[in-house]
């Protein structure tokens, strides 16, 4: 074909893909080489594998099942603050895991609000620890993602069809069977696979809420093999097992859906006059209230707990904030560039490569990079750049899932005209792509910045001489008995993560 992505785009995609593959394969190779080959996994590793699969499946199924009524309510109801609701419920995804778990405990823990309320009714106490706790936390993190994926599915159904259904007076059951059911059959498998892949890499959640060694995930087993047994061979084999699973899930998800993850695409649906009234209105409201409370209460708890600690924050908080901002902004810029390069060819192979980093944990990557750097330079000096690099890889799959469809849509909508005018390379980027994907671009940069901001990452593995990031400071405060100040730091972290996400998302604009 004479038209299409063009050589420059394919080149950018190839270069990006090569970079990503190298950054994934080299560390793994370095570990295997240092280990001198693999080691067969033992029975404990296999039970870790089993638990990992179990919790990831349950988390995925539950997240998506709960997301269906919530997404439907959001799709067919219009109310003041709907936009804010969607933004706020996206929050857990951006939270540092350890912080989020503390927020969950404040609500669902032994002395949490839920048990306090249940206690006054003579119920409970309810224990969060165990498989159900792990799943609860994963649903907290991933419900917003599932809601967004499904909401996009709903909004992809042309409004005319709902109008037609309303004209024919179809009852809600029929509307579901004819319109919503077929859409869900398409959207649900992809959502399941995506969340399944994310939950496979769970570490802190499983460890803190799991309740014991029965809740050992593969990621934890990798961590222990590295840091406690210094058994690189076993760690590498476990990492490969995990990579295989995640790659499988990622490929499945890619194969099953091609969804548009853009933030600006969320509010585009037109007025729906066909939404059923009566008790269904009440049910929709109830779902929205429940989902909202589930997601927002832990955030409120974090704010309340963090406020008193703000006064105790040490002076070095501000340099730490500065370091975190540098890492976070750098991560946003690099991730978006890389995601752009991989979106440019509009090819599945490029997208597939971009999802691969999900398969390797930051610990595996960090250790591999460490082994590569060690002969050349003292790794501690590279702590921040390596943190940045690993954060870029970790954020890439999410950014790519937002950018690639937007890029493809810009090409689909206006590529013909651009071809006709002979726009190529950079001028195509400047005049067609960038203006058309501004919204998703801001959203993606926001995600990358926020994810990077909250990540403790590999900095602990590399050690630091004097530069610390905000999450590291938080951990140091916790480790020094200064729990109250640590809560304050968590609140600052929370504010920064959301703040930077918000700024980027705004910069992208809503209507571009």
């Amino acid at each position, binding site marked *: *074909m*004479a*038209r299409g992505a063009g050589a420059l785009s394919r080149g950018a995609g190839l270069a990006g893909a090569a970079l990503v593959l190298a950054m994934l394969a080299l560390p793994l190779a370095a570990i295997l080489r240092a280990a001198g080959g693999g080691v067969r996994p033992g029975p404990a590793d296999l039970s870790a594998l089993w638990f990992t699969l179990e919790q990831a499946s349950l988390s995925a199924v539950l997240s998506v099942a709960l997301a269906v009524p919530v997404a439907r309510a959001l799709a067919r109801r219009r109310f003041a603050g709907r936009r804010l609701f969607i933004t706020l419920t996206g929050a857990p995804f951006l939270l540092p895991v350890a912080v989020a778990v503390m927020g969950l405990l404040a609500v669902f823990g032994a002395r949490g609000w839920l048990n306090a309320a249940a206690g006054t009714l003579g119920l409970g106490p309810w224990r969060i620890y165990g498989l159900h706790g792990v799943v609860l936390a994963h649903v907290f993190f991933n419900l917003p993602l599932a809601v967004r994926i499904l909401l996009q599915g709903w909004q992809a159904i042309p409004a005319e069809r709902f109008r037609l259904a309303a004209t024919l007076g179809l009852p809600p059951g029929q509307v579901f069977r004819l319109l919503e059911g077929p859409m869900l059959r398409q959207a649900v498998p992809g959502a399941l696979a995506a969340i399944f892949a994310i939950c496979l890499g769970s570490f802190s959640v499983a460890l803190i809420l799991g309740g014991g060694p029965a809740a050992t995930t593969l990621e934890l087993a990798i961590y222990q093999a590295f840091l406690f047994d210094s058994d690189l061979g076993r760690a590498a084999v476990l990492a490969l097992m995990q990579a295989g699973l995640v790659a499988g899930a990622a490929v499945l998800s890619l194969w099953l859906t091609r969804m548009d993850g853009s933030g600006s695409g969320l509010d585009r649906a037109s007025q729906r006059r066909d939404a059923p009234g009566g008790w269904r209105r009440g049910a929709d409201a109830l779902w929205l209230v429940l989902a909202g409370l589930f997601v927002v209460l832990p955030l409120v708890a974090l704010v309340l707990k963090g406020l008193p600690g703000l006064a105790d924050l040490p002076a070095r908080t501000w340099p730490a904030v500065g370091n975190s901002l540098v890492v976070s902004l750098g991560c946003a810029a690099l991730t978006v560039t890389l995601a752009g390069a991989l979106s440019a060819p509009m090819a599945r192979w490029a997208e597939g490569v971009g999802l691969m980093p999900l398969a390797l944990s930051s610990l595996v990557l960090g250790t591999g990079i460490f082994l590569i750097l060690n002969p050349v330079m003292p790794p501690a000096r590279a702590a921040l750049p390596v943190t940045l690099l690993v954060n870029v890889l970790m954020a890439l799959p999410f950014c790519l899932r937002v950018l690639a469809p937007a890029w493809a849509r810009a090409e689909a*909508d*206006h590529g*013909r*005209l651009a*071809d*006709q*005018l*002979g*726009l*190529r390379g950079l*001028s195509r980027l*400047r*005049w*067609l792509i960038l*203006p*058309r994907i501004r919204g998703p671009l801001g959203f993606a940069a926001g995600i990358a910045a926020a994810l990077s901001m909250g990540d403790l990452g590999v900095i602990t593995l590399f050690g630091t001489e004097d530069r610390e990031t905000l999450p590291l400071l938080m951990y140091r405060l916790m480790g020094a008995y200064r729990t109250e100040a640590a809560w304050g730091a968590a609140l600052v972290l929370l504010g920064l993560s959301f703040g930077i996400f918000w700024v980027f998302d705004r910069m992208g604009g809503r209507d*571009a």
Partner: protein
Amino acid sequence: MPEQDGLHLKQVELMQGDFRLSADFALGAGARVAVLGPSGAGKSTLLGAIAGFLDPVAGQILWDGARIDRLAPGARPVAMLFQDGNLFPHLNLMRNLALGISPRGRVDAAGRARIERALERVGLEGMAQRRPAELSGGQQSRAALARVLVQARPLMLLDEPFAALGPALRAEMLALVAELQAETGATLLMVSHDPKDAERIADQIVLVDEGRAAPPAPTAALLADPPPGLRRYLGDG
């Protein structure tokens, strides 16, 4: 037919899935041709192939004796208007038209003056800073024509760009197209559903039906004595 000026489709075979279309004809420079035929017959496919959006599986497309069928769309001597999406919605008219002059979007004072003149010519003077969404449907069509004007390509392809306009407005646009064609001397190839449109501005008709794009025939003669395919389409046989 010897090599000549204008457009030459030499035993061109097009394929899109199960759909096939063959074309083997030439058009002289400055011709005004309507492409007529039932919907789904392949009118847009034919124009798409000439503009470079579909590669022929066989045959050659030539302009002034030189092959153009391996060129990228922007490198062909073609300015094309689609059914919709003829302007970038995120750019104002000045920028949209500037891209018609230079794909890098950089124009000097002379270029800007040319753009102003083109806008003036289509009746949009003073609207260079507006975005397409700030224009009416008719104005958008005019702006698109202004873009074609500044592109200054010898071959003008119109794939029903005015289909969404009302009859009066459409007639107005066609009149404008005819004027512009006369001024520039470009070869015009225009997809149409309506024989009246064809009568209005085309001196020849290419009938596309049953997998074949027939060589151009004079409009008046063809409409006076339509062949079976055209008669079926016109619905008076």
